C-alpha cells in the first residue's frame, strides 16, 4: 500500500486535471452536439497564450517588456490565468462560427471540421511559437518539493489538483445555481424548446463554446507544467478527454468527473507496475465500460447516436 500511495495520489491529481478538460468538452457536446476534436488544441492555445503573457510576448525587448519582466512572477502568472482563457474563448468562438454551416447535418461533419481545425491550430502554434518543447514558468510559492509522511511530492501537483477541484466546483455551482446555468442545461436537454421560449440559440451556442474553450485554456495553463508544452500536446490531450466523456456518458457532468478520476487512477496504478503501458489502461477501460454499458456510466440517449 505504501508503495502504491504516491501512484494513487498522482492518479487522482491527473484525474482532477482530466476532469477539468473533459468538463468543457462535455458542455460543448451537450449543447452543440459536436464532438470538438479541436478541444485539445484550444487547451494548447491557452497554455501558449499564458507563455506569451508571462514572458512579455511581443513586448519583449521594449521598455514596457523590461518593466513587465521585472514584476514578480506571481503577478504575471495570475494575469496569465485570467487573460489566456479569455483568448482561448475567443478562438473557441471563432471555431463556433465556422461550425455554423454544419448545424443540422450529421454529427460527422462537426467532427471532421474540428479535426481540420485541430490541424490548423497546431500549425499556427508551430508558426507562432516554434516547434520545440517549452517551459511554462510557475510562481516559486507553488513550485518545488514538499515532504509529507516520509514521501517527497511536488508542491505543484497539489496546487494543480486543488485548483482543478475548485474550478470543477465553481462550474458546477454556475450550472446548478445560476439562471445562465439553467439555460445552458435546458439547451443541452431540448434546444428547440429553449428557442421557443425566446432565448437566442445562436448566442447561447457561441457563449457555451467560448466557455468550454476557456475551461480548456485554463486546464492547459495548469496542466502543462506537468505534461510539458509542445505543439503536439493538443492531440495528446483531446484523446483522454474524449475517452472520459464516453466512459462517463455523453452530456453527464458527474459522469465526466467520475470517469476522469477513474481514468486518472487507472493510469496512476498501471504506472506503478508497468510504466510503459500506463496510457494503454485508459483505452482498455473505455473498451470494458462501453462494451458493458453502451452509453457509458451515466449516459442517456443522445442525438449523436444517429
Amino acid at each position, binding site marked *: 500500500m505504501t508503495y502504491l500511495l504516491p501512484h494513487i495520489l498522482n492518479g487522482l491529481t491527473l484525474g482532477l486535471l482530466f476532469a477539468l478538460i473533459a468538463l468543457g468538452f462535455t458542455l460543448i457536446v451537450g449543447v452543440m452536439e459536436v464532438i470538438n476534436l479541436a478541444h485539445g488544441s484550444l487547451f494548447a492555445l491557452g497554455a501558449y497564450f499564458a507563455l506569451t503573457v508571462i514572458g512579455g510576448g511581443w513586448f519583449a525587448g521594449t521598455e514596457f517588456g523590461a518593466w513587465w519582466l521585472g514584476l514578480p512572477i506571481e503577478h504575471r502568472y495570475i494575469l496569465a490565468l485570467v487573460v489566456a482563457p479569455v483568448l482561448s474563448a475567443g478562438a473557441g468562438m471563432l471555431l463556433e462560427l465556422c461550425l455554423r454551416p454544419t448545424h443540422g447535418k450529421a454529427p460527422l461533419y462537426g467532427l*471532421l471540421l474540428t479535426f481540420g481545425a485541430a490541424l490548423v491550430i497546431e500549425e499556427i502554434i508551430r508558426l507562432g511559437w516554434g516547434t520545440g518543447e517549452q517551459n511554462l514558468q510557475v510562481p516559486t510559492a507553488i513550485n518545488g518539493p514538499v515532504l509529507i509522511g516520509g514521501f517527497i511530492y511536488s508542491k505543484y501537483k497539489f496546487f494543480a489538483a486543488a485548483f482543478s477541484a475548485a474550478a470543477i466546483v465553481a462550474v458546477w455551482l454556475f450550472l446548478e445555481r445560476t439562471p445562465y446555468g439553467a439555460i445552458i442545461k435546458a439547451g443541452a436537454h431540448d434546444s428547440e424548446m429553449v428557442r421557443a421560449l425566446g432565448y437566442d440559440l445562436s448566442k447561447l451556442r457561441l457563449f457555451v463554446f467560448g466557455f468550454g474553450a476557456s475551461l480548456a485554456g485554463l486546464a492547459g495553463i495548469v496542466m502543462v507544467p506537468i505534461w510539458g508544452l509542445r505543439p503536439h500536446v493538443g492531440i495528446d490531450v483531446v484523446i483522454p478527454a474524449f475517452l472520459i466523456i464516453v466512459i462517463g456518458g455523453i452530456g453527464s457532468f458527474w459522469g465526466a468527473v467520475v470517469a476522469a478520476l477513474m481514468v486518472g487512477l487507472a493510469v496512476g496504478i498501471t504506472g506503478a507496475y508497468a510504466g510503459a503501458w500506463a496510457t494503454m489502461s485508459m483505452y482498455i477501460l473505455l473498451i470494458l465500460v462501453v462494451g458493458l454499458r453502451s452509453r457509458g456510466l451515466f449516459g442517456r440517449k443522445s442525438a449523436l*447516436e444517429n
Partner: protein
Amino acid sequence: MISLSDVPFRTPLATFGPMVFIGLLLVTAPWWLPAIGLYQYLGTEIAIWLIFALGFNLLFGYAGLHSFGHGAYLGIGAYAFGLWQQNVMVGLWSGLAAAILAAGIAGAIVGALISHRRGIYYALMTIAFGQVFWFSAMKLHSITGGEDGLLGIPRPALELGFASVDMRSNVALFYLAAVFLIVALVVLRRLVNSPFGRVLQAIRQNEMRARFAGYEVWHFKWAAFVISAMFAGLAGGLFSMAQQSAYPDVMSLHQSGLIVMMVLVGGGLVSFWGPIFGVLLYFVARDVLGGLTETWLLWYGLMFMGMVMLRPEGVAGMLHLLVRRVSGERSGAELAAEKVS
C-alpha cells in the same frame, strides 16, 4: 446535398472510357511523373494510398460507418509483411497474403466488438481500438521494434511461375502496386454494385429500416469492416515493401484522420471515384505546396475546413453537379436531394 445512392449506376461500358484513361495514366506514369518535376516513388505511394482509400470508402462512404482508426489496419498489414519476411520466409505472395490475413483477423475481432454500435459511438470505438493497436506497436519492442519500427524489410522478387521479376527497382514496384490497384478497383466496383453493396447503402440511409427489411444488419457492418481492413492490410504490405520498413507512425490518429480527410475532400460520400481525387489532391498538395512552404498542412487544413463548411460533397460532387449543369439534365433524385438540403 447529393449522396452516393443518388448517382445512378453506370454500366461497365459507360465507365469504360474513364477506366481506360486511368489505365493509360498508370501505365505511363514512370515516364510522365519525372517529366513534370515529380519523382518516381510518388507514383508508388499514391497507388498504395489509393488502394487504402478505396477500401476505406466501402466502409466510410457506402456503409456510412465512420472509422477514425483505420490507419491501424494499414500498420498491421505493414508489420505482418515485415515480420513474415524476417521470421518465416522471404516471399512476395506469402508476405502479402500474411498482411491481408493479419489485418483481416484484427478487423474481424474489432468488427465483432463494435458492429452493434452506431453513429458517433462507432467512431469513438474505432478510435479507441486504433489507439490500442498504435500503442501496442510502439511498446512491444521485442516484436515491432518500438518507435523505430522494423527496419531492413527485403523486397522479395515477384514469382509468376514462369518468370521471376526483381522488385528492387521503384519502377517494378510501381507496376506491382498499379496492378493491385486495378484489381482493387474492379473488385470494389463489383462489390458496391452487388446486392451486398446495396444493403450497405441501405444501412447508411436507415439502419433501422434495413433491419426491419429482414437483414441481419450487424453481419453486414462486420463484413464491410473486415473487407476494408483487408484492403488496408494489402496497402500496408505494399507500403512496407515500398518503405522497406514498417513503423507505428502510420497507425496514429493523425494518419487515420488524414485518410478520412482525403476521402471526404475527394468526394467519397458522393462517388465511387471520390477517394481517387482526394488522394491525388493530398499528395499534390503535400509535394507542390510542401515545396513552396513549410506550413503546407496549415493550408491543406484550411482548405479542408472550407470544404466541410461549404462543399461537403467534395471534388467528385462538384464535378458531378458541374456535368449535370452543363448537360442541363436533372434527375429526380437530385432535385429531391436539393429540396432536402
